[in-house]
């Protein structure tokens, strides 16, 4: 009812961060006298929106996000009186390309993916509708296997990374960007890099990685896009492809060798820190070496530890609110 005080922390947001947040919440509940926080998924956007709905007990305390907060979110927060927000980076997430364990091995470059999935590609200097049927058509070094890719749907934060780090880079590398810009002008040319073919070769998955895996099992010749931690839990079913010759792993991502990765964040509403019991403790516990450090349970589950974790710990202790976006 109206007159009851909330005593558990409420967290909402990215489904990518969700497993890490639950691992921390569980350990927090076990080791502190506070109740175990309630952690919800629903997507980074939904989480940030809920965070910015206002200050007060019937709003959440922390938003998980697999991408950086947007200016529009910050504006929305301001409008609703949510002024001080801490941005906590918890580590990095690798995005991997995996196929059935019994299939052939793949070694990709972003350009391969662009040429395989783009609606239009450049053939002999001309912009044509994508004619490629097999990976072998794309790149003679790749196996002769029909192209079928399960990529994250546009609701996923992962898709944005895929668009930027794979398609755009591939577009540039392969030189198609220039041809597009030449043919369509600056703006439409850049857009054309991200336009995917619609003949069923590229399949958007709005569900989770489990769905991608299930579809992969139904279509053995397909390639799916997964999070690193999901892959690590299913190494007996999936084999991972290299990107630019680098095999994805916690180490290669941490060293910055593997190109397709992104930072993961959560955002804390400072105004709640003193009001929701245990909130400060939870935030500190999350970024403690015990949890988020190398060798901790999060890393064991597939989170790539942040080399600058100490800085984050300091910031969290001081409750330093985030500055303006650069």
């Amino acid at each position, binding site marked *: 009812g109206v007159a009851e005080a909330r005593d558990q922390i*409420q967290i909402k947001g990215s489904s990518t961060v969700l497993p890490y947040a639950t691992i921390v919440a569980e350990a927090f509940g076990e*080791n502190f006298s506070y109740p175990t926080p*309630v952690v919800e998924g629903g997507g980074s956007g939904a989480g940030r929106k809920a965070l910015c709905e206002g200050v007060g007990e019937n709003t959440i305390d922390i938003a998980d996000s697999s991408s950086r907060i947007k200016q529009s979110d910050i504006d929305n927060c301001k409008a609703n009186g949510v002024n001080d927000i801490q941005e906590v980076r918890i580590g990095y997430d690798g995005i991997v390309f995996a196929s059935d364990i019994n299939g052939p091995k793949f070694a990709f470059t972003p350009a391969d993916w662009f040429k395989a999935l783009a609606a239009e590609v450049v053939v002999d200097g001309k912009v044509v509708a994508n004619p490629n049927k097999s990976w072998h058509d794309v790149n003679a070094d790749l196996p002769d296997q029909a192209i079928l890719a399960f990529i994250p749907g546009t609701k996923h934060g992962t898709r944005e990374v895929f668009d930027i780090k794979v398609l755009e880079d591939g577009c540039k590398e392969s030189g198609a960007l220039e041809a597009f810009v030449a043919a369509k002008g600056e703006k439409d040319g850049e857009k054309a890099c991200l336009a995917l073919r619609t003949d069923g070769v590229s399949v958007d998955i709005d569900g989770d990685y489990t769905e991608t895996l299930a579809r992969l099992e139904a279509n053995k010749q397909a390639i799916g896009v997964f999070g690193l931690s999901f892959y690590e*839990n299913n190494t007996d079913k999936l084999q991972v492809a290299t990107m630019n010759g680098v095999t994805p792993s916690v180490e290669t991502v941490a060293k910055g060798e593997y190109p397709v990765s992104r930072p993961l964040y959560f955002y804390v509403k400072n105004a709640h820190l003193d009001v929701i019991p245990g909130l400060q403790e939870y935030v500190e516990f999350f970024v403690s070496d015990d949890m988020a450090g190398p060798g901790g349970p999060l890393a064991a589950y597939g989170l790539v530890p942040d080399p600058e974790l100490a800085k984050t710990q300091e910031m969290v202790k001081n409750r330093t609110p985030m500055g303006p976006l650069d």
Partner: protein
Amino acid sequence: MTDATTTSAGDIAHPKGRSLVVPGERTRHRQASERRFRAMGLVAVAFGIVALFGLLGSILSNGTSSFWQTSIALDIYLDPAKLDKVGDRNPDDLVKVTTFGYTPLIKAALAKELETRGISVEGLSANDAMDIISKEAPASVRNYVLAHPSKIGETVKFDILADGRIDGYYKGRVSMESAKLDRNVSPEELMLADKLKKEGVLATKFNTAFFTAPDASDTRPEAAGLGVAILGSAYMMLIVLVLSLPIGVAASIYLEEFAPQNWITDIIEVNIANLAAVPSIVFGILGLAVFINWAGLPQSAPIVGGLVLTLMTLPTIIIATRAALKAVPPSIREAALGVGASKMQTIFHHVLPLAAPGILTGAIIGLAQALGETAPLLLIGMVAFVREYPGLPPEGFFDPASALPVQVYNWTTRGDPAFVERASGAIVVLLLFLAVMNIMAIILRRRFERRW
């Protein structure tokens, strides 16, 4: 469907005295069509039942294994040097030792066990051996110690959970071959488990915790249970039943028996039919806007879920109830009115009991739908990781809770394949819920069903 009458048989009038035993051409046609129709009915029923058993079969074959769980019996020395450095058994101090501090105790206990039994597997270090034990183990030992501080310094026998992959090995999910590829388990660990099993240290037992324990994080599928979800679903169903059945029946009675037949009732009628077509997710939007943002009810609470599901099931119940009320013959109403019963008495004494089977059917379908619904709960915060049990009603209605379908949904999105088995197990539990509800309704329906 062949229409018997369109065939233009030659015999117009009945030739008198034709035999009954040797039917005419046309009759044979009609009889054949009768048999076809009947066969089609039987085929349809068979199809329904086969579909049901197919689905149930696959659910059960995937899910029942989650009712068993592998555990390891270990004698753990509760070392005072580690657990209570001060030595005064002060709970405030004991709490300071976190689960991380308990891991070494378990490791030591396992090593000792292996040593005394003379078990060793080539290429398996003591550290790796720990992998066969669930990450839940330190927490359960810690809870035990906090509850029984006096036991510190003693050696206590614990039945601790084996790791999910080890458990999967005994359920056929993991094999020696897959273990070779699997980063989370190695063939050596499986061999060790086999040896422990031979010694009787490791055993697979009925998994009561599955029904009572709360959810667990992605690293501990073996510890995940349905306790909170069962409570949450039960609370929500209670709210739905208590609200939607009376409101639905009352609304139907008003519309069917009292409301004047005019355009207003037409609007209400169309409106209710339309509500049945509103996607359940939209009810979630409604719940978020009205119950949480406007009325200020808490997030993730069964009360909000129950209210949303109530609104969602109402149209189903109203439609079924109105159809059932319509089917009660007017002569029964007249009979009651004729002996001087008031309209209200007529309805409550005669019409409702006769309509009860139909009403119950609507209620079953509506409740079943509510029980298995996920989408609207997505928006009101019920699809969450909740480990604290909600309190007793009515306060408990306002505590965060999960729900069975949500738990299924949650578990199917997790990385560790062990959760797939759990999800199927949760579906089995959900179906048990459903079966109990159905059986109650069937018993009631039997009592009311009659032809007049």
